[in-house]
């Protein structure tokens, strides 16, 4: 799994590619918590390159989301691949976190 992050306007964009599973999810979690510590709390996670997400990944997202909530930040997702979209839909993550079709839309709307 690879993370590519940058700031744009007031957002902190994280592009995730590869697989998020029990092995790689902790890295995502640790990196995001680190960025939140730094003060970047308007996270936009673009999952265009993510081909698979396991329950471990979902768990990491929940942890990151809880942390963001505690600092008054926000978390949104964009460009979900079909597999990941299915998981989000089944687990109703879509109602927990905003999900956009594309990164532009995510940046435009929040």
């Amino acid at each position, binding site marked *: 799994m690879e993370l590519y992050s940058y700031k744009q306007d007031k957002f902190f964009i994280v592009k995730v590619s590869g697989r998020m599973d029990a092995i790689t999810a902790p890295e995502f979690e640790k990196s995001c918590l680190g960025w939140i510590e730094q003060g970047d709390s308007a996270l936009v996670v673009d999952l265009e390159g993510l081909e*698979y997400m*396991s329950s*471990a990944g979902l*768990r990491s997202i929940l942890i990151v989301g809880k942390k963001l909530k505690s600092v008054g930040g926000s978390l949104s997702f964009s460009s979900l691949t079909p597999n990941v979209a299915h998981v989000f839909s*089944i687990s109703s993550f879509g109602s927990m976190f905003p999900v956009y079709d594309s990164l532009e839309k995510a940046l435009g709307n929040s």
Partner: protein
Amino acid sequence: MKNRGLAFKLILFTLSGTMAVFLSAFAYFYVSSKDSMTKCVEENARNLTHSTVHQIEKVLEGVQKVPLNYASLLSARNFEAGDIAGLVERMVSTNLEIYGAAIAFEPDALAAGAYYFAPYCYRKDDGHLMNVMLGDESYHYFTMDWYQIPRELNRAAWTEPYYDEGGGNMIMATFSVPFYKGKDAEKRFQGVVTADIALHGLQQIVSAIRLYRSGYAFLISRNGVFITHPDSRLVMTNSIFSIAEVKNSSLLRRIGKDMINGGEGLAALESGLLLPDKCRLYYAPLSSIGWSLGVVIPEHELLEGVHRLGRMVILIGLAGVFLMTIIVMLIARRITRPLKDLSAATVEIARGDLDAKLPDIQRGDEIGALARSFEEMRLALKDYIKHLTETTSAKERIESELKIARNIQMSFLPRAFPPLTGKNPMEISARLEPAREIGGDLYDYSLIDDDHLFFAVGDVSDKGIPAALFMAVTKTLLKGIAETGLDPARILNRCNLELCGENDSMMFVTVFCGVLDLRTGRLKYSNAGHEPPVIVRRDAQPEFLPVPEGFLLGVEEESSYQTMEIELEPGDKLIVYTDGVTEAVNAAGEFYSHANLMATVRSCWSLSVEGIATEILGSVKLFSLGIPQADDITVLALSFAGAEV
């Protein structure tokens, strides 16, 4: 073997290196010593030759002066016949080197009527002078060399050496000078003035020259005849050319010719020519007389000093090399023996005896450092293995406990349905294959009361021990709450609330649960983030059951859940599964997918519930053959048979 290898190589290398250096140094020394020695000797020979030549020529020139003077005297003045004898006597008396002298006239030159006129005076052994008149029938001096040669050549000449007529052993030579009457065109030959010298004095000078043991000097005449030679048999009988003929040496003949032609030089001669061994000849001419002096130096004698020195050096060198061999061997042994001991001890350690004693090597050098490193390594190895053993036993302990935990966990899960009296209104079977020994999937089914079956399938986030514990808690909650008779949504609600407390780790569980009325076939079900099951109605294609939305259990207290209902007809089947099925990966990285699941269900729906569960599980396992199982796989199959009629 190794010992010999290293020591052997060490010795070989050092020895050949030193030998090479030594030999080249020696070769250089030998060659340059030989050269400088030879040059030195040649220089000496040259000097000796020149000084001897000079010495001899001084004598000869002294002798030559006398007849030359008298000849010019006779050419200048007229003398009476009676005066001549006096002149001759004076020649001898005033010159000790002159043995005899004569003034010989042409026929009828001086005294008319005297065909022969040649007064001769010579010194007897006792020192007295003897006067005689030469020339008679038996002594026709006009054709003798001492007379004829100067006459025909019109110049003074030395004769070849000859034996004295007196019968003695004396070798003589005569210098004769022509004298004339008149001048230029009218110059007429009158006679010769001669002086004889005995050569024994010169012979002694030359014979006295001794070089090394067998070196010598020799004198040859104008014809190359030996005048002196260490082998007296050669004197007067042999010439350098007759020797050359006997030895068949064109080199010696060439040298002889050069010598008698007044040449000077140095020549190297092979063995057997002038000496039994190889030798060098230095020669220089006695120009006044036309003879030549040769000095013969035996080559091996002149080089004896060098050879001896060389032998000593070689001996010392060999001794040194020998000594060095010993030393190198000892040094090599000092290195290889501890190495050998170390390697032997290491073999012991390798066999497992970590307490094997390493050889005690207390040295400051690399070997000592190596030994100390070995010891440290041994101790570290010992420690590591101890830790490993401890860790392994700890690990084994955990593993054995995990096994026990698995057993306990599995024992939670219902195996077979307790048989009901009479015909079964439904059949239910489940298979669960955890990814590790204990998993995070769960299933449950039990009769809440006579008419209602409660069943549920759940998937805890992650795997391993935390998931297993969560699974145990969730299952117990579900069962407990279900037995209070609530509908599925409320079951999930209550369960969620219980699970949310103190959940910092954000563990969650997805659950599908349902309550089936066995009399009516009415199924009430609810979903918390779980995969929609597959429903196979009798005589219809399998479909995905629509499920109500509901968030995962254990995260949000405010999550709400809904109950949906369907009527099951006899022959309908329901297949509930976890995402371990659809998300199983094959070698190519492809997911098993919902499509595959559907296809499998289509192919096996007619089987018994056990068959269906087993078939689906088997299909998944086949699909992901070779790939380690990443997630727990659960399949629960339910078939409704209908109430007893």
